[in-house]
């Protein structure tokens, strides 16, 4: 190896750090923030600043509404339905789900027992009606679905927030609450009375 080649190798070796510059190519965020909108992301493109476009008034989702369906409205031919629609099957699972939905969405005002003593009712000046009155006990079940969907008086509608199936589940649970709160304990079977006294929710 002569001195000439030796110097050349050293000169090239001094440049060995240059490939490290490729690491700088990793310093970018275009994969983190890709050119697309995510849910609720603001947009400078639309005048109102939102990327999620509000639907045109009176728009309904495909299969999301039908004016003459008891399932969607709680009414049949303009009359409130007295029974659950055929699509909703009354079983323990429905009531369990109904309890969960009721406790989440209804109980803040109506109270866990449906007595109108919820925490919001307690704080505000508003009077929330109890479900345990003769007027509401004899009300057709479609009424509760209609109110849950569209609201009534000061209560806002929950049609946009709770799915149809969940609304029916909650309505079925309201009926169950009405029965449970209007049942004489002495008419229950001894085992059920013991369970009730012990305070355990379910066997």
């Amino acid at each position: 190896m002569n001195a000439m080649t030796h110097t050349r190798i050293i000169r090239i070796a001094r440049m060995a750090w240059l490939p490290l510059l490729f690491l700088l190519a990793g310093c970018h965020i275009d994969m983190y923030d890709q050119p697309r909108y995510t849910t609720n992301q603001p947009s400078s493109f639309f005048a109102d600043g939102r990327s999620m476009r509000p639907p045109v008034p009176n728009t309904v989702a495909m299969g999301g509404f039908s004016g003459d369906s008891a399932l969607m409205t709680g009414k049949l031919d303009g009359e409130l339905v007295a029974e659950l629609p055929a699509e909703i099957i009354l079983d323990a699972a429905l009531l369990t789900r109904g309890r969960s939905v009721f406790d989440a969405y209804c109980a803040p005002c109506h109270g866990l027992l449906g007595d109108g003593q919820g925490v919001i009712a307690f704080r505000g000046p508003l009077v929330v009606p109890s479900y345990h009155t003769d007027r509401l006990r004899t009300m057709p079940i479609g009424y509760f679905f209609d109110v849950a969907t569209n609201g009534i008086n000061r209560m806002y509608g929950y049609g946009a927030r709770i799915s149809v199936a969940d609304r029916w589940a909650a309505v079925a649970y309201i009926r169950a609450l009405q029965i449970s709160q209007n049942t004489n304990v002495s008419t229950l079977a001894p085992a059920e009375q013991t369970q009730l006294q012990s305070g355990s929710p379910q066997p």
Partner: protein
Amino acid sequence: MSAQIFSRNANAIFRVILLAIVLLVSGTIVALIGLYLSPWYTEAGVAKAQPIAFSHKHHTADLKIDCRYCHTTVERAATAGFPATETCMSCHSQVWTTSPLLQPVRDSFQTGAPLVWNRIYDLPDFVYFNHSIHVAKGIGCTTCHGDIGAMQLTSKAQPLYMGWCLGCHRDPAQQIRPVDQVFAIDYDVQSLSLAERQQLVVEYKIPTDGRLTNCYICHR
């Protein structure tokens, strides 16, 4: 005696410089790792300014309002959903109706202009995350969102690094809870024994054959 090129203490200076270089390089690396894990970079535990001083503590722990009352799509969509102004007004058209703190809510309700909240949990766009499947399989809100019942102002509870996600995906039994406790803000995952939690993993049909750690599970 020939002239010395280096002074008598050159060796000592050389050693000190060597040590300084080693310390500087390793110190820089440690400092960078520290920064990477620090709240300054991860935003964990750092509350952001919001248009309204909304308190999760007040609404969840004090008033016992369910997470789903506001985050309505958490059970059926990828995102839990920011509540519409109408959701706020469902109660605040009746309570605290004159509070100046809630003026932006009332303005938004009247004008239709949305409230612009500052996002706390912002996953990179290359991560696919779906709330509904986690909620349906017994992963509670507080597992990722922390002790929300204690947060006056909301902050991130986790840095959201991939290793943290993988911790659960490798062993779901660490954090699983019964599905009816998912929205309970004061639930303690340790209240079930590990064996009971492993039983839940089986019951909820959570795959433990390694599928949950496939890249494609989250990067799709």
